[in-house]
C-alpha cells in the first residue's frame, strides 16, 4: 500500500487486548483520518453515550500523506465523544500538530483506536510491531512537559508522545491531549477522555517507512505547493513579543527567542509561533522553553481596534501582562494541559468583561478578578486544573458555569455546544466584519464544533483580503460568483449612521451557501489527508502575482502519494460523503435543524466592528438554501434518502429509517 501505512491499531484497555485491522477496509472510500473515524464512529459509537463512559472511543488518526515531506503534512486528528459538548456531550473532531503523526506512521499504523478503561494509570508504548500497555505510575500527576521528557528517558529521544496533563487526569472538560510544548488538540476536551480512560500517554517510535507511489511527482507537486506558501528564505530574528503590530512590546535582550522553529515533522510551512527559551518568570524562577503562537499570545498583551470592544473594555487594552508573565502563563496552560482557547476566550474573558462592566464575581469566585496580575492567573489555572474550590465548577466549562452562577451571560462568548467564539466578530475575533460573519454563522450552524480552525480559516483570509477589487475577483474565480464576499465591507455603513441598506442586507445573505458547502467538503479532505489548515485549501497565495492559489493541489498530492488517481471533483464527492455521514452521526444523537438554529441568538448581538446584528429572517432563508443545496430536508435538517443513496450511503439511510429519523 502506498501512502497509507496499511494497519489501524485497536486497543481495549479494559481487557488489555491489542489487535490490528486492515486500513484497506476503509480506503480509498473514506480517504483517511476524518473519514475513517466517522465510519468507525457510525459503526461502533452507540448513540446517547456519555463522553466519560468507558465505551467511548478515543481515535487518534493520521492520513495517507502524514509522514511524507511536504507542506502541512504530519498533522493528526483526535476523534471521539467530547466532554466539552453542551448541553450534552457528542462526537467532535480536533486536530493536533507536532511529530507524533509522522512517528505513528513510521511505526506502521494509520491510527490508534482506543476503547475501554484501564484499571490503573497506564500508557501505550508503540514500537513498530511491539505494542504494550504499560504502567504509568511514575507519570501520573506530572505535567505535559515532564511526562514527555520522562517518556523520552524511558524509550529514547526519538520517541514522540501525545499526553494528557493534570487537567486531563482531573476530567476538566476542556483538557487537551498535548504533544511537544504547544501542540494541542484544543477543542472538545479529549484530554479528559484520556484521563477517564486512565491513559496518560500514547508514545510511539517507528523504524518503518511511508512508501510513495510516484516519488518524482510527489516532490514536484509538494514543491509547487510549498512555493505558494513559503519562499526559500532565512527567518528574520525576533524583535517583538507582541501579538500584532498594533500592540508593540519589544523583546527584552535576556530572553532568547526563535521564529518558525520546531514545526511539525517534514513540514516546511513554518506556521508556528515564537519559541522562547530561558524566560525568567514572575512567579516561578525559569520557564525553560515554551512556544507561544496563535491565541496563546493573548496572555502577553491584548489590544483592540474595534470601537465597540473599546467601549466594552474601556480603552484599547484588554490587559497587558507583558513578556515575562505572559510567556510564563502560556507555558503553565500548556503544562497543565488546558485549552488556551477556552481559558482565554471563554472563562477569563467572561470574568474580565463582567468586571469591566460592573458585575462583581469576587464573592462567587473567592478571589478578585485581576487579569493584569500574574498571581490571578496562577490561582485561576491551578484551581481549574486540580478542581480546587470554585475551580471544580470552572472546570466544567463556560456554559455550565453560567448555569450555576447566572451572572454575565451576555459576556460569555460561547456560540453553541459549549464551544467558544471563533469567526463570529463578537468576541476575540472582534475585527471580523460584516458580511463575512454571516457565512461564519452558517458555518457554525451546520458544524458540530468550532468551524474556524479547520474549515473556514481560508474564508476569513479571503474576507479580510485588503484590496476589494482583488477580493471580488478571487471570489469569482473560486466560487463562480462574486456574492461570496459581497457587499464590500468598505461600503457598509456603521449602525449609528444607518447601517446596511436593504440591498446590502439582501446581498449579504445571498450566495453564501455554495461557498460554505465548498469549504466544508474541502475540510473533510484536508482532515482526511491530513493536511494543515494554515496552508490548505490553497485558495489564496500572496506569493503569486495574481494571488490565485491552486485548488486541485489536494487531489494531486493524494494521487502522487497513494497511486489512487482521483480528480478534484471525485475527491470533493468523497468529502461530501463523509460530511453527510458525520451529519447522520449527529442526527442519530438527536440533532435537528432546531439545534442548528441555536447559534442565532449569539449572532443577534450587534457585532463589534459596526454594530450590525444578524437578520434572523434572512438567515433562516439562507439556511433553507443551504439545506436544499445539500439535499437535506429543509424543516428537519436531515439528509434525504435520495441524497444518501446518491452518496452510496444506503446502509446509513436504512439505519436512520429504522430509528424513524429519516424525513418522509
Amino acid at each position, binding site marked *: 500500500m502506498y501512502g497509507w501505512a496499511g494497519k489501524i491499531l485497536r486497543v481495549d484497555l479494559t481487557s488489555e487486548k491489542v489487535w490490528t485491522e486492515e486500513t484497506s477496509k476503509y480506503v480509498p472510500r473514506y480517504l483517511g483520518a476524518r473519514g475513517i473515524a466517522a465510519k468507525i464512529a457510525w459503526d461502533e459509537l452507540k448513540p446517547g453515550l456519555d463522553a466519560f463512559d468507558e465505551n467511548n472511543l478515543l481515535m487518534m488518526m493520521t492520513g495517507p500523506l502524514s*509522514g*511524507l*515531506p511536504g507542506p502541512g503534512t504530519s498533522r493528526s486528528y483526535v476523534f471521539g465523544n467530547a466532554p466539552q459538548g453542551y448541553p450534552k456531550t457528542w462526537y467532535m473532531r480536533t486536530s493536533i500538530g507536532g511529530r507524533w503523526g*509522522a*512517528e505513528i506512521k*513510521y511505526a506502521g499504523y494509520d491510527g490508534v483506536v482506543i476503547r475501554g478503561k484501564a484499571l490503573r494509570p497506564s500508557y501505550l508504548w508503540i514500537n513498530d510491531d511491539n505494542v504494550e500497555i504499560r504502567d504509568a505510575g511514575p507519570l501520573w500527576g506530572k505535567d505535559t*512537559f515532564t511526562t*514527555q*521528557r520522562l517518556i523520552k528517558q524511558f524509550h529514547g*529521544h*526519538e520517541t514522540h508522545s501525545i499526553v494528557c496533563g493534570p487537567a486531563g487526569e482531573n476530567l476538566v472538560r476542556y483538557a487537551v491531549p498535548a504533544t*511537544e*510544548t504547544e501542540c494541542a488538540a484544543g477543542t472538545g476536551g479529549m484530554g479528559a477522555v484520556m484521563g477517564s480512560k486512565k491513559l496518560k500517554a500514547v508514545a510511539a517510535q*517507528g*523504524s*518503518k*517507512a*511511508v*512508501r*510513495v507511489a510516484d*516519488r518524482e511527482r*510527489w*516532490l514536484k507537486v509538494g514543491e509547487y505547493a*510549498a512555493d505558494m506558501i*513559503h*519562499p*526559500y*528564505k*532565512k*527567518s528574520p530574528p525576533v524583535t517583538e513579543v507582541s501579538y500584532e503590530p498594533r500592540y508593540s512590546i519589544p523583546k527584552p535582550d535576556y530572553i*532568547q527567542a*526563535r521564529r*518558525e*522553529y*520546531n*514545526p*511539525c*515533522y*517534514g*513540514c*516546511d510551512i*513554518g506556521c508556528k509561533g515564537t*519559541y522562547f*527559551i*530561558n524566560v525568567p518568570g514572575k512567579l516561578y524562577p525559569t520557564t*525553560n*522553553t515554551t512556544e507561544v503562537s496563535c491565541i496563546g499570545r493573548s496572555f502577553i498583551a491584548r489590544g483592540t481596534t474595534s470601537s465597540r470592544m473599546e467601549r466594552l473594555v474601556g480603552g484599547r487594552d484588554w490587559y497587558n501582562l507583558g513578556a515575562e508573565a505572559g510567556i510564563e502563563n502560556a507555558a503553565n496552560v500548556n503544562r497543565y494541559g488546558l485549552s488556551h482557547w477556552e481559558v482565554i476566550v471563554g472563562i477569563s474573558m467572561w470574568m474580565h468583561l463582567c468586571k469591566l462592566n460592573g458585575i462583581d464575581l469576587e464573592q462567587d469566585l473567592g478571589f478578585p478578578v485581576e487579569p493584569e496580575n500574574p498571581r490571578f492567573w496562577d490561582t485561576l489555572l491551578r484551581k481549574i486544573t486540580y478542581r480546587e474550590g470554585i475551580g471544580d465548577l470552572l472546570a466544567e466549562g463556560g456554559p455550565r458555569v453560567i448555569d450555576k452562577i447566572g451572572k454575565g451571560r451576555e459576556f460569555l462568548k460561547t456560540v453553541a455546544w459549549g464551544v467558544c467564539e471563533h469567526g463570529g466578530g463578537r468576541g476575540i475575533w472582534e475585527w471580523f466584519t460584516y458580511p463575512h460573519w454571516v457565512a461564519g454563522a452558517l458555518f457554525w450552524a451546520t458544524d458540530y464544533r468550532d468551524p474556524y480552525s479547520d474549515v473556514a480559516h481560508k474564508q476569513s483570509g479571503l474576507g479580510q483580503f485588503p484590496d476589494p477589487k482583488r477580493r471580488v475577483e478571487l471570489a469569482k474565480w473560486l466560487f463562480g460568483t462574486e456574492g461570496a464576499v459581497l457587499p464590500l465591507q468598505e461600503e457598509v455603513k456603521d449602525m449609528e449612521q444607518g447601517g446596511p441598506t436593504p440591498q446590502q442586507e439582501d446581498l449579504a445573505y445571498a450566495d453564501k451557501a455554495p461557498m460554505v458547502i465548498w469549504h466544508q467538503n474541502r475540510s473533510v479532505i484536508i482532515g482526511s489527508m491530513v493536511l494543515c489548515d494554515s496552508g490548505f485549501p490553497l485558495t489564496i497565495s500572496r506569493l503569486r502575482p495574481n494571488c490565485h492559489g491552486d485548488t486541485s493541489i489536494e487531489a494531486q498530492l493524494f494521487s502522487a502519494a497513494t497511486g489512487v488517481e482521483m480528480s478534484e471533483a471525485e475527491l470533493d464527492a468523497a468529502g461530501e460523503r463523509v460530511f453527510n455521514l458525520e451529519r447522520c452521526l449527529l442526527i442519530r444523537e438527536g440533532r435537528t435543524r432546531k439545534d442548528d438554529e441555536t447559534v442565532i441568538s449569539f449572532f443577534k448581538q450587534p457585532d463589534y466592528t459596526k454594530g450590525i446584528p444578524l437578520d434572523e429572517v434572512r438567515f433562516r432563508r439562507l439556511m433553507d438554501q443551504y439545506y436544499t443545496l445539500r439535499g437535506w430536508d429543509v424543516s428537519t435538517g436531515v439528509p434525504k434518502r435520495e441524497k444518501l443513496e446518491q452518496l452510496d450511503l444506503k446502509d446509513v439511510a436504512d439505519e436512520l429509517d429504522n430509528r424513524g429519523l429519516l424525513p418522509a
Partner: protein
Amino acid sequence: MEVSVQVSNEAKEKVVTPLAASMRLPRSSWVKGDTELCSTCGTCELYCSLSHEGSASRSKARLNVISDRFTGDTSIETCRQCDVPACLYACMVPGAMSIDPKTGARLIDEDKCVGCGNCARACPYNAHGGIIRLNPAKNVYIKCDLCGGEPQCIRACRYLALSYEQKRV
C-alpha cells in the same frame, strides 16, 4: 630591506609535508548545517530517505537533525567527509568503502558492505548514530554520499540552513 617571495599554496604544501601530501586522500566537499537558521522541520531527512530508499523514513536518513523542544537545543549532524576518514580506514572489507572521484565523498558500497559496523563505531562524530547508521532491511550501513554533487537535503531546505561547502583541494 624586505624581500617578499611569493610561494604558491601548492608549493608550500609540497615543501612542508611532502610525505603527508603524497599519502593524502582527495579532499571532499560536504554539507554544512547552520543551527541558527535551522527550523528543525526534518524535511531534509525525508528528502534524503526518499531519494536514496524511495520511501520516507526518519530512521533511513543520512543526516540527522536533533532538537530538544524542552531546552531549545538543536544540532544538525551531517557527515564531515573528513580529510582523514576514520570510517574508511576502519573498513575491513576490500572495496566496500571508496571515494567518489567526482565529489570526493566517502562512499559505502551497499553490495559489498557486510554490516559489521566498524565504520559507524570509528566515526568520531557518530555519537547519536545519525551519520553512519544501519539499514536493518538490507543489513548494510548507510552514509551521506553527497548525491553525486547535488545533495537533495539542500534542495529541501526552505530555511537555507544547509550549504554545500567546497573544501580547498
